[in-house]
């Protein structure tokens, strides 16, 4: 049964290797620093994570203010310069329709970021509520939820995604909804498997015996204790969404012209990779910078927030 995966993995992660060899002091001194400061210090010690944050911030700034540095808009066509390599006038060159690649890249990055961040946030929220509720209520609710999750995981969700977005997409906001609706399952499954161990925690039982209502227990006692897992999944969710969006757009099922995302730019550039490589290279570079920076941030956060678990969010990728 597939359930074994997570139980085995998470049980392996629970015992704290540091505690086993009786290393006191650490736990007594740490809180004096303040939990937040401690996490920050651990995060900052991870150089790659800091690099990731810097890159991500630069990308966000680029997408927000990059358009100020060019006189072209992404939709403007410069018929005097079709398929031109990078030049002083067109920093990233132009495409077959005469669109400025720099302006398109700024706009495409903006679209891709907006889609990735909102899908990632929505996915984590939906997955946290569904996953932890399934774990908390157990019994039939849990069985039914897991059946749905497993079913959706086994059927290539990409296939359904393509099917649905073919009809509805074009509008990037619809794409957000579609990607969320078909993207929450694997995160929910990870959250469910961690929550099943939280469900057994004494403080949850204690809350039940105090007469606390179920929604309140889930919101106050289970979800906050998933903290690091949720944050890490948030960053990895950005990566996963960017990859899904590019894949969909590449095949023509994502954002539709005249709108532009990094995925559509990749698709347009792929055909002319030998004759006009700049059409492909700039969006590809931006996508990779975006995903790599988020992965570094995610790994850094995981190490900083949850030094004992190596597995944790690994199952939630893709």
């Amino acid at each position, binding site marked *: 049964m597939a359930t074994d995966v997570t139980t085995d993995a998470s049980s392996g992660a629970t015992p704290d290797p540091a505690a086993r060899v009786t290393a006191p002091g*650490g736990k007594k001194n740490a809180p004096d620093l303040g939990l937040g400061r401690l996490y920050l210090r651990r995060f900052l010690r991870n150089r790659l994570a800091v690099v990731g944050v810097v890159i991500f911030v630069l990308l966000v700034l680029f997408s927000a203010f990059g358009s100020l540095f060019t006189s072209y808009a992404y939709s403007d066509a410069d018929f005097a310069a079709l398929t031109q390599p990078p030049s002083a006038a067109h920093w990233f060159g132009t495409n077959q329709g005469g669109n400025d690649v720099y302006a398109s890249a700024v706009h495409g990055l903006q679209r891709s970021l907006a889609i990735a961040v909102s899908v990632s946030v929505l996915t984590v929220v939906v997955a946290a509520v569904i996953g932890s509720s399934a774990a908390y209520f157990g019994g039939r609710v849990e069985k039914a939820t897991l059946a749905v999750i497993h079913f959706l995981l086994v059927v290539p969700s990409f296939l359904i995604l393509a099917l649905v977005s073919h009809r509805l997409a074009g509008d990037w906001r619809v794409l957000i909804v579609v990607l969320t609706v078909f993207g929450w399952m694997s995160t929910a499954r990870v959250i469910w498997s961690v929550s099943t161990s939280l469900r057994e925690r004494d403080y949850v039982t204690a809350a039940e015996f105090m007469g606390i209502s179920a929604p309140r227990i889930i919101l106050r006692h289970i979800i906050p204790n998933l903290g690091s897992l949720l944050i890490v999944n948030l960053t990895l969710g950005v990566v996963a969404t960017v990859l899904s969006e590019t894949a969909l757009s590449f095949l023509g099922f994502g954002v539709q012209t005249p709108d532009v995302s990094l995925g559509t730019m990749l698709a347009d550039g792929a055909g002319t990779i030998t004759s006009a490589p700049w059409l492909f290279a700039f969006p590809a570079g931006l996508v990779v910078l975006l995903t790599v920076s988020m992965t570094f941030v995610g790994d850094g956060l995981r190490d900083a927030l949850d030094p004992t678990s190596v597995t944790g969010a690994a199952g939630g990728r893709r």
Partner: protein
Amino acid sequence: MTLTTLAATPAPTDATPVLSVRDLRITFPSEAGPVEAVRGVDFDLLPGRTLGIVGESGSGKSATAMAVMGLLPPSAELRGQVLLGGRDLIGLGDKELSALRGSSIGMVFQDPLSALTPIFSVGRLLSDALRVHQDLTKRAAWEQAVELLDLVGIPDPRGRAKSFPHEFSGGMRQRVVIAMAIANKPSVLVADEPTTALDVTVQAQILDVLRLAQQETGAGLVLITHDLGVVAGHADDIAVMYAGRFVERADVDELFRRPTMPYTARLLAAVPTVDSGVHRPLVPIGGEPPALVDLPGGCPFASRCAVAQDACRADEPALREITGHGHVACLRADEIADGTLDPAGDTGPDDGPGGSGPEATGEVVLRVEDLVKTFPVTKGALLKRRVGTLHAVNRVSFELRAGETLGLVGESGSGKTTTLLEVLRLKRPEGGRIEVAGTDIGTVDSAARVRELRQDVQIVMQDPLGALNPRLPVFQLLAEPLQAIGRDRESIRSRVHELLALVGLDASVSGRFPAALSGGQRQRVGIARALATEPKLLALDEPLSALDVSVQAGVINLLARLKRELGLAYLVVAHDLAVVRYISDRIAVMYLGHIVETGDTESIFSDPRHPYTRALLSAIPVPDPQRERARERVVLQGEQPSATQPPAGCVFVDRCPLYRLADEEVRGRCRTERPEPTAVAGRPGHQYACHAV
């Protein structure tokens, strides 16, 4: 199996030690700086002798064991010498060390549930262990493995060798671990808390197996434990560890007769025991052990010591020989040794003694009649089909009055916790009746009424760290039950401060998170939370078992004071009879879902009737070597069977020592007829269920 002798044969004086540790120091890196877990430990271990290392959690005892085995994580920094047969193990590579591990040193670990590779049969594990060091054919190794399983007392060793670890109980797995440790007849055995995870009657068996294993191999044994009772009966020499050092090292009799380091003395005074004749008040040690990062100079115990002087805070005293008292690391050891100084100082008990006597005649707070609880046993992953019924609780009855404490005692699987949870659930039980404060909870159907009843019944849980949500500060933790009953903000604030004062905590802790509290403080928060809604009945689920001995006593005294002041009724579930004795007015002993004996605490302890109660009492080691050796022990055979197919007659029949001695007519009744509670003449309330007594 009744054992009264101890292998206390004095070792010949010219024997060379099999293991010598010299100035061992271990440092772990941590966020807050290097943790000096072990700060200079010396000892010699002679063949055939047992050295007990006693200490509380964080004292460095397990790190010492791991250092001897060469199994510390690579991040640990190691200095000093570990001499095994004259060869220094520190600095040896993994390859050289692995040639010695298993062949010269064997190790028994704390948690047998996780210590065995789940995907190999125990026969395979054992024969692999043999073949690492010996050139054996697979068949020969398997044969030896079967012999070893037989030696450590696994029934049907040939058949069971093919079984996987998860098919064994905890006690049986620990026997396998011991068999693996002694497979190649090592000269040194290291046992790290070998019985902590086990039930008391199983603990007694495992300690016997360990002794047998030692006799069989002639090895020197390092026995590491937090339980003073375990070392009293099983060690020849004892070293007490505190803050990474030995603070006292002496012959077992010497140490218990006159503990000379104040820490040892205070520790012994804080341990509840089963067999002391009178109700001895427990004296807690104030404070907590120090953190081992940037340890200030001076004696690490000085801040908790009643007889500390200024000199104690200046320099850390070295371990030095005190004539007739072994080695002690205390400046005032001479005064304590010759009896002119009481190491406890004049600190009397800070609260009154535990038991309040049998005068509790308040209203009945809880009445349980014929309570039944079963669980379905299912099989199959896709379509679950019911293959049996687990009779967790079977016709259990008792009542509890205000101001009274009832202790439910039994081993894991006896149904004591299930009983407690059934009471707390406040739902109509599967069978029988539960009455809380005069209300039959089977008749309560409105949610509002259930909420009202909830206020009357609250719980304190076993592990104080686990029972407190780590993401909420103390104030929020205590406010939660009050919010649940709809108190307003202002009254919550004043009530929280009232509660903190009630359990003896400073108001300043209200902003802290549980991780920033000490174990004792956490349990006090847990108690305060349970008291928030002014309950009449407090359910205590193993309230002390997660606490260190030095902290336990303080919580026991707090519980006693609260009961007196607030007129509470306690329903205590515990496996440790010694602890229960200190807090209970009455005791009910449970076995396989049944109450087999019930009565006043003193009556049960002075005159146990049921053979199981007797065995349970005698299985608990006493922290006094003389009495521990002299008393008669009833070591039960086997383990508690599964409650899926309880015997038709007496549930204890399989393990009962009386059954074996009884005549045919009684045996027949034991097998076929459930014994009814019988009253003990002259002792009101004392009942037992046995045909053979």
